[in-house]
């Protein structure tokens, strides 16, 4: 959304927009102090931090796209993904240990799903990586449950009025992943080509997968 003005943050104003500034020097220093003290106490090693950052960097929506493309091409896998999402993700080499419960919601010709976390930012991080800033924003959290069709329109997503729109609110203990509908005109495509059509936003439900070129 080029052209958006950047609101200034007024501390103390509960109606101020969610902060989007970089970390303040004070918090940069606090992170360092806390990390160094924890390492000094042997809570974890400095190496553990580096490894964890690498792991986080390696988690991205391409992992979710692989699940979706497999579900589109393999009916048995689709069934498993819907029935036992974590087991299905594990089968595809995604590490879902230490992650909360996961539910996969299948979009159909008559029903579309939209995922939000009104209370915070809960998201299937193990499968999609860290959520985008807008997902964590006060505006998205507040609007998704009140004006979901307006939100879809803002994302440029057309949803015919006859299609039911179901909004699901995530919690710390339960995360949702949308299984979008396979786009028309993709009959000849292999799994990798299909996965390339599956966007992060289509697995949150704010948009549809891409159409084949």
């Amino acid at each position, binding site marked *: 959304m080029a052209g958006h003005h950047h609101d200034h943050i007024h501390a103390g104003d509960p109606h101020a927009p969610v902060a989007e500034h970089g970390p303040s020097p004070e918090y940069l220093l606090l992170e360092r102090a806390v990390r160094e003290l924890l390492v000094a106490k042997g809570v974890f090693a400095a190496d553990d*931090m580096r490894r964890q950052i690498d792991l986080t960097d390696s988690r991205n929506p391409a992992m979710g796209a692989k699940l979706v493309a497999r579900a589109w091409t393999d009916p048995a896998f689709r069934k498993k993904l819907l029935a036992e999402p974590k087991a299905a993700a594990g089968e595809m080499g995604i590490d879902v240990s230490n992650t909360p419960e996961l539910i996969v919601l299948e979009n159909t010709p008559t029903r579309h799903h939209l995922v939000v976390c009104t209370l915070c930012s809960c998201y299937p991080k193990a499968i999609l990586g860290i959520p985008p800033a807008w997902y964590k924003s*006060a505006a998205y959290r507040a609007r998704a449950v009140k004006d979901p069709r307006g939100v879809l329109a803002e994302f440029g997503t057309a949803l015919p009025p006859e299609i039911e729109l179901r909004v699901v609110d995530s919690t*710390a203990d339960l995360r949702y992943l949308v299984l979008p509908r396979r786009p028309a005109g993709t009959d000849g495509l292999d799994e990798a080509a299909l996965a390339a059509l599956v966007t992060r936003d289509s697995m949150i439900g704010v948009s549809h997968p891409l159409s084949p070129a």
Partner: protein
Amino acid sequence: MTANRHKLAMHDLGGVAPFADRPIDRREHALSHFDKSVDALMYLLSHPSRRLIRVDELRRAIESLPAAKYHGLSYYEKWLQAMHDLLVEKGVLGKDEIAARLAALRAAGAKP
């Protein structure tokens, strides 16, 4: 609705004005090293081998921040503030110990 709004907790934003009337800023933000470090810290502290901070505890600490901090700090600044508060509350780190380390870093002219 207006009457109900006053009963809602600070973080309970579903349908709440004025946020519900605002456009969504859809710009993508690359995560900074700070963001990734704080995320990694929480992962390590919550790992089953340590269980020093659970995700629900992090939520509770974030949700009980003063409103100015809840709405004024960035996402990962809030996480760090909450983790700091929890580590002190649980006695994993002492408040004085953290203050001393911060003072030493400042005295040494440390860049974060």
